[in-house]
C-alpha cells in the first residue's frame, strides 16, 4: 500500500515538474508568466519559513527582513557597485544567513510568543534601516535597474522565459534541500523540538543549537528568494521588506500547510493567483480573504496539504481497521 502511494507520489511529482517546464511554451501572456515566477519566488521564501515554523515550531516574524537583506544585497551590489549578478546572489545568501545566525543567538534566548515579538522587532528594524539609510539603499525612492543575470555558458538570460527557468531551477533546488532535510535525522530533531522541547532534550537533542541551525537555514533561504526577487522585479523599494510581507509569506504557509513539503508551493501559488484574481475588488480583497483564512485555520489547521494527507491516511487506514477487529476508537472515529 505504502509502496504504491510512494510510486503515485513520484508520478505526481514528475507530472508537476513537466507542466512547470512546459509552461513558458504555452503561455504567451507575459503578465501571467511573471505572476507564476513571482509565485515561485514567494514559494521559495515560504520554504524558508517552513523550516523554522513548520518543522521546528518557532514563529519568526522577521522573515521579510531577511528576504529584504537578500534583495538589497543583490540590488546594492549590482546597481551601486556594478557587481555581476551571480556573486551578488551568493553574497545575498551568505549575508542573510550570517546575520540570521548572529540575530538567532539573541532571538532564540526567548521562547514562543516572546520569540515572535522579538523577531517582529528585528524585522521592523531591518525595514527601518533600509528605508532610512538613503545614501546606501536609495531610501523610499528605492533602487532602480537591477540587471538580469549574466549568461551562464551557453544559457543567456535575455527575457522572462529564461529567467523563468532560472527561478524554477532554484525552486526545485530549494524543494530538494527541504525534502532532504525533512527526511534526515536533522529534520527529525527539528520536528522533535516542535512537538515537545522537553522530550527533545530528554532524547539528547541540543535544543538551542538545533533551533539556531533551523533559524540560519530559514534566513539563508529567505536571502536566496530575496536575491531572485531583485533580479526578477528590477526595482526595489523598502515596502517589500516591511512586516506585512512577512504575514503574506505566513499566509502562504497557512493556506498550503505548515510542516509539509508541498504546502509552501501550493500556498504561494494559490494565494498569489487568487489575490490577482480578486484584484478587481482592490482593497476589499482582504475583506474577502480574511474570513476565508479564518475558516481555513479552523477547519484545516494543517492547510490544504494537511487535508490531502488526512484523506490519504483515511483511505490507507480503512482496510487495516477491518482486519484488526478489536481496537480502541481513535480520535477521528469519536468525532
Amino acid at each position, binding site marked *: 500500500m505504502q509502496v504504491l502511494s510512494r510510486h503515485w507520489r513520484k508520478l505526481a511529482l514528475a507530472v508537476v515538474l513537466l507542466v512547470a517546464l512546459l509552461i513558458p511554451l504555452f503561455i504567451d501572456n507575459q503578465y501571467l508568466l511573471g505572476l507564476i515566477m513571482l509565485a515561485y519566488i514567494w514559494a521559495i521564501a515560504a520554504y524558508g519559513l517552513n523550516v523554522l515554523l513548520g518543522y521546528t515550531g518557532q514563529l519568526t516574524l522577521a522573515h521579510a527582513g531577511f528576504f529584504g537583506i537578500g534583495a538589497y544585497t543583490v540590488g546594492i551590489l549590482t546597481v551601486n557597485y556594478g557587481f555581476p549578478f551571480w556573486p551578488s546572489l551568493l553574497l545575498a545568501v551568505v549575508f542573510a544567513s550570517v546575520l540570521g545566525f548572529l540575530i538567532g543567538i539573541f532571538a532564540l534566548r526567548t521562547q514562543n510568543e516572546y520569540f515572535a515579538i522579538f523577531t517582529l522587532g528585528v524585522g521592523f528594524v531591518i525595514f527601518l534601516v533600509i528605508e532610512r539609510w538613503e545614501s546606501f539603499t536609495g531610501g523610499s525612492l528605492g533602487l532602480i535597474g537591477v540587471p538580469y543575470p549574466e549568461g551562464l555558458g551557453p544559457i543567456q538570460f535575455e527575457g522572462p522565459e529564461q529567467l523563468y527557468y532560472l527561478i524554477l531551477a532554484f525552486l526545485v533546488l530549494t524543494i530538494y*534541500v527541504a525534502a*532532504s*532535510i525533512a*527526511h*534526515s*535525522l*536533522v*529534520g*527529525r*530533531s527539528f*520536528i*522533535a523540538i516542535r*512537538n*515537545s522541547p*522537553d*522530550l*527533545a*532534550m*530528554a*532524547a*539528547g*537533542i*541540543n*535544543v538551542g543549537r538545533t533551533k539556531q*541551525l533551523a533559524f540560519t*537555514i530559514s534566513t539563508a533561504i529567505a536571502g536566496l528568494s530575496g536575491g531572485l526577487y531583485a533580479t526578477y522585479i528590477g526595482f526595489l523599494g523598502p515596502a517589500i521588506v516591511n512586516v506585512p510581507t512577512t504575514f503574506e509569506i505566513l499566509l502562504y504557509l497557512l493556506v498550503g500547510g505548515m510542516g509539509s513539503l508541498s504546502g509552501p508551493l501550493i500556498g504561494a501559488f494559490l494565494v498569489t493567483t487568487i489575490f490577482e484574481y480578486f484584484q478587481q475588488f482592490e482593497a476589499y480583497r482582504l475583506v474577502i480573504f480574511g474570513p476565508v483564512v479564518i475558516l481555513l485555520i479552523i477547519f484545516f489547521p494543517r492547510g490544504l496539504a494537511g487535508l490531502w494527507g488526512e484523506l490519504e491516511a483515511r483511505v490507507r487506514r480503512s482496510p487495516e481497521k477491518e482486519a484488526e477487529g478489536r481496537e*480502541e*476508537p*481513535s*480520535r477521528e472515529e469519536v468525532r
Partner: protein
Amino acid sequence: MLLKTEGLGITFGGLKAVDAVDFEVERGTVAAIIGPNGAGKSTFFNLVSGFYRPTSGHVTLEDEEITNLPAHRTVRSGMARTFQTTNLFKESSALDNVIVGHRVRTRSNIFDAIFRTPRSRRENRQCRDRAMEALSFVGVDHLADRTVGSLPQEAQKRISIALALATDPKIVLLDEPAAGVNNEETQGLMDLIRKMVEHDYTVCLVEHKMGMIMGLADKIMVLNYGQKIAEGPPEEIQADESVIEAYLGAEEEGEEDA
C-alpha cells in the same frame, strides 16, 4: 556505584525543594523514590537529569561528574528519562516518535542531510533499526506504524520507555510509569521493568503505587519536604516510623494497594 548524588539540592526562592540528598544506585538494580506529593521527587529527577541546575551538591554517573551538564548531555552520558505525563507526539506513528531517540548516538549533520551522504543513509537506517528493537523490547512492535494518539495509555507508556531505551542509556529514570493505568496493566509494566534489569539496564523510579514499589525495588529512598527521611530495602521502609508518620500526614497517598 552507577549513579551517585552527594549533598544534592536546589532552592527556589528560599524554599529548599530538594535539600542535601545523598543517594546511590547500584548497577543492575531498581531504586525507587517515594514520598508525599510535593516532597521533591520529580525535582530530584530534574536535578539528576540536568533539567534543573542544582544550587548545591554533585551528581556522578559511573564516576563521571555530570552535575552541571545540560539535559541533552546527560543523555549522551547514558541517562534517559520519561515524564510523568506522556508527552509523545500524538499525531505521529509510534516508530516516528522513537526513532529520534537514537539521534544522540549518531553524527550526521546538516550537510550530510542536504547531500544525502552514505553516512546520513546509514545512520537513518541505524536509528530506525534501533527504534524497532526498542519497540519490540517493550512489547509494542506490532503497533509501530500506528498513530500514538489512537493507542491506549499503557501502550503510550511503553512507547515512552522505548524512546528512553533508544538512546542506549545506562540508567533509566521513570517518573510515575504506572500513573493512569489499571492494575493488570501495572503488572505488565512491572514485568517490563524486571526485563529491563535482566538486560543490564539500571532503573530508578518515582511511583505512588506502593504495591509496584515494594514488588520491584531493591532499595527505596523516602523524601519529605525535600529531605531524605529514610533509605533502605522495602521491608525496612515499611516498618520505618518516620515514613509512616510522613504518610499519615497525607492520607490520600499510597494506600491504594499497599
